[in-house]
């Protein structure tokens, strides 16, 4: 009954959304401000409606309404309440509703802003946001209804939205429960973060389309959406990092990124989004690359839709394929339609998007930014090629051929190295014109520093050529960035008489975008250290040992002490927990680790939880493989030593801080100007 009500709310929301699209277009064509306002209000109504629908779904999830198919599939009685709530995005139908809910929230947020200065964008932003929303709602209502219920008919038990004739409602005793692998804090917040990132990229796209349709192709749309884009980027980045951390902690293969098609699907919009963030600066400063920016935001939007589809469907073989469904053709239809329409709009406005200046110097800031964009897009092309190669090869040769991680590592490695090198020199270049001489003047000190560090690493750490090259580039970026930061602060300190820390603080505050960007560059360098470390120096071993026996790896001694196994009936889990002691080279005890294996009765599936001993130098990562329950005589462990991996996570945290600094809202200078103008008018009126 209540499920039917939830479905009804979804249908009403779809009708309201469609009305909003219609009223905005019709109102705009008839120049009726009242109709456009009506469209805006209709759009504002969608969020309360979808919140109601989501509330109903959560109610059903919490209260074990297993007659609802979705509830049956993703929850079970033994799951704690918070996991039942988060099961909302644990399956395809719920994920799509979650997507719609976020979409309407963002659309509402953006329509609540002050529109005085760009009224003409409003109807088209509404149209784009609501068409996207309507597509996802339509998917939910017609194909992936989270409120479908199980009915028993003569043919068996099948899910239906409406009760079929001669059937009775069927309520299973218990649900199947969320896959144990997904019952992890990282997995609880990773999907919403990723979705927040995905959905918020729709907003800059909506403004870009509005700019193309209305012909207001100056950089107004970019200025309005700059913060949106940064927040979208923040969420998407955080989602990717959390997903990596989940894989590292839960999947137990000692790594965090497997170049799985689903990971790549989430990574692709990040690539275009990052390119977009850089190239809009060229348009703002120099009035160039306008076609290119449009193309980038369109690509990002369609890659977001593609990513949403891929992460929740089984089209490509992947460890992420927890869900499968037949909505693929519709997704591809929608992607094709929006792509063709948007690109057609670019051609329609081709003349208006002409560059205002010409690029002259190969080493100017804009040329280096363009190169950065080309590298990002090249990585995108490599990723896209890898994902679709099985489909292409099957089409042309009848033989499915796939590529795996070695392909991506080999093809993207030089491109990533190029990007890191650019991070080192681009901040030193000037807009308009730079020469080797001007860049060299700022570069030589950091370059010498990086050279010294590299030589030291060569003698004391590694002789691996790739590692040496990689560490040199990373050291260069870090030193250049710190040097630039220091130069700015030093200049301020002298000019303003501030002490160093105040100077640093004020410097960042005055130009948050620039210095937030530097922090992001620094953090990427730190992450690169971790990525190099785990890819080039990971060590692994395994062994079956008895109590008080030990295994050596990379200077560590791993001593097995104990294993215990017990059931927890309330959770429906059997825990097996080993205790091992880790000693360093000199025999000092570094700590105890507890690798675990949990067995979930409801899904009959084990879950492996590694024991991790982290330090800045490396991390000991131990997996419990097998044990003798009775005499504990022999227990098998797999052990990894992952050098430098923790720089990856430190870099990730710093990365988030950097984006927050760059994206933190400050008072809109134009509004300050407007307010000042108003006060001026008032005083003059009083005169």
């Amino acid at each position, binding site marked *: 009954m209540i499920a039917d009500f939830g479905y009804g709310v979804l249908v009403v929301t779809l009708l309201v959304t469609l009305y909003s699209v219609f009223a905005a277009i019709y109102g705009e064509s008839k120049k009726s401000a009242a109709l456009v306002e009506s469209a805006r209000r209709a759009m504002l109504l969608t969020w309360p409606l979808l919140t109601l629908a989501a509330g109903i779904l959560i109610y059903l999830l919490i209260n074990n309404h297993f007659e609802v198919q979705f509830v*049956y*599939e993703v929850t079970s009685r033994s799951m704690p309440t918070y996991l039942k709530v988060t099961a909302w995005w644990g399956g395809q139908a719920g994920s799509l509703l979650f997507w719609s809910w976020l979409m309407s929230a963002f659309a509402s947020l953006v329509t609540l802003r002050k529109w005085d200065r760009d009224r003409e964008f409003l109807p088209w932003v509404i149209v784009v946001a609501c068409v996207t929303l309507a597509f996802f709602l339509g998917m939910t209502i017609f194909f992936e209804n989270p409120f479908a219920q*199980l009915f028993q008919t003569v043919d*068996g*038990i*099948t899910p239906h939205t409406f009760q079929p004739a001669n059937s009775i409602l*069927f309520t*299973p*005793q218990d649900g*199947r429960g969320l*896959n*144990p*692998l997904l019952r992890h804090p990282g997995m609880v917040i990773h999907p919403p973060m990723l979705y927040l990132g995905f959905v918020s990229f729709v907003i800059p796209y909506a403004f870009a389309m509005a700019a193309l349709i209305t012909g207001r192709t100056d950089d107004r749309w970019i200025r309005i959406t700059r913060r949106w884009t940064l927040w979208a980027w923040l969420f998407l980045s955080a989602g990717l990092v959390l997903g990596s951390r989940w894989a590292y902690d839960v999947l*137990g293969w000692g790594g965090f990124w497997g170049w799985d098609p689903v990971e790549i699907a989430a990574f692709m919009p990040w690539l275009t989004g990052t390119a977009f963030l850089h190239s809009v600066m060229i348009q703002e400063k120099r009035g160039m690359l306008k076609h290119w920016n449009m193309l980038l935001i369109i690509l990002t939007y369609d890659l977001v839709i593609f990513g949403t589809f891929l992460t929740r469907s*089984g089209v490509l*073989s*992947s*460890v992420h394929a*927890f*869900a*499968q469904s037949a909505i693929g053709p519709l997704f591809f239809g929608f992607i094709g339609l929006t792509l063709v329409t948007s690109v057609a709009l670019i051609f329609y406005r081709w003349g208006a998007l002409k560059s205002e200046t*010409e*690029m*002259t110097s*190969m080493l100017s800031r804009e*040329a280096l930014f363009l*190169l950065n964009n*080309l*590298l990002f897009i*090249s990585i995108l*092309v*490599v990723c896209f*090629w890898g994902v679709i*190669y*099985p489909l292409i090869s099957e089409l042309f040769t009848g*033989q*499915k*051929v*796939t*590529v*795996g991680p*070695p*392909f991506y590592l*080999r*093809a993207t490695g*030089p*491109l990533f190295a190029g990007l890191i090198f650019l991070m080192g020199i681009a901040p030193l270049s000037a807009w308009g014109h730079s020469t080797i001489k001007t860049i060299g003047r700022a570069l030589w000190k950091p370059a010498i520093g990086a050279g010294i560090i590299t030589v030291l690493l060569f003698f004391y750490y590694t002789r691996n050529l790739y590692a040496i090259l990689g560490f040199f580039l990373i050291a260069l970026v870090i030193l250049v960035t710190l040097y630039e930061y220091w130069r700015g602060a030093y200049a301020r300190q002298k000019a303003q008489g501030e002490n160093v820390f105040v100077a640093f603080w004020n410097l960042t505050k005055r130009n948050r975008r620039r210095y937030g960007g530097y922090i992001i560059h620094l953090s990427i360098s730190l992450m690169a250290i971790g990525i190099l470390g785990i890819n080039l120096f990971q060590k692994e071993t*395994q062994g*079956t040992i008895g109590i008080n026996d030990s295994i050596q790896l990379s200077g560590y001694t791993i001593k097995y002490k104990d294993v215990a196994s017990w059931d927890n009936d309330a959770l429906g889990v059997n825990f097996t927990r080993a205790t091992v002691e880790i000693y360093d080279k000199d025999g000092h005890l570094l700590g105890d680790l507890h690798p675990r294996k949990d067995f979930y009765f409801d*899904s*009959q*599936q*084990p*879950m*492996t939880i590694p024991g991790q001993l982290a330090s800045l130098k490396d991390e000991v990562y131990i*997996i419990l*493989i*097998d044990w003798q329950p009775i005499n504990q005589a022999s227990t*098998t462990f*797999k052990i990894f030593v992952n050098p430098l991996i923790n720089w990856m996570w430190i870099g990730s945290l710093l990365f988030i801080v950097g984006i927050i600094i760059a994206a933190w809202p400050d008072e809109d200078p134009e509004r300050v100007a407007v307010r000042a103008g108003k006060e001026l008018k008032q005083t003059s009126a009083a005169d």
Partner: protein
Amino acid sequence: MKINKFFIGGLLILGAVVYLIVSSTASTSEYFLTINELHAKGSSIVDKNLRVAGAVIGDTVKYDPATLTLTFEVAHVSGDNAQLETEGGLAKALHQAVLDPSRERMTVVYVGPKPDLLRNEAQAIVTGHLGADGIFYADELLLKCPTKYEEAVPNQAG
């Protein structure tokens, strides 16, 4: 003149990227085969990079924790989505494949931790090479469990 400079630079980058993609594809690609296709090819594909999908037969799973050697058999499942649909979806197709003794089978050997998702009627996607002995030596083992999580209809429930 100025345009040429950027044009040549762009061409160089484009060439480099094309080279990277083509050479990497050539050196790392793996044939994705079903078990029937694998057997049809005979000895011509011994020691090539392969990726094979099949249904895990639960009774055949053996694990030697001392050497971390995992051995199991997989049964042929169609690689064609349309074919899978007519068999009633992946879950049913996997179920059928395991029950049907006339299906072609392949023995897989993998050294490493036993994956959490390895169970009867899971879909295994193994990457590695076929030995001259007809055994598949996997370097990588991916598993999907549609039976438990994405089966449309709860047949056994209630």
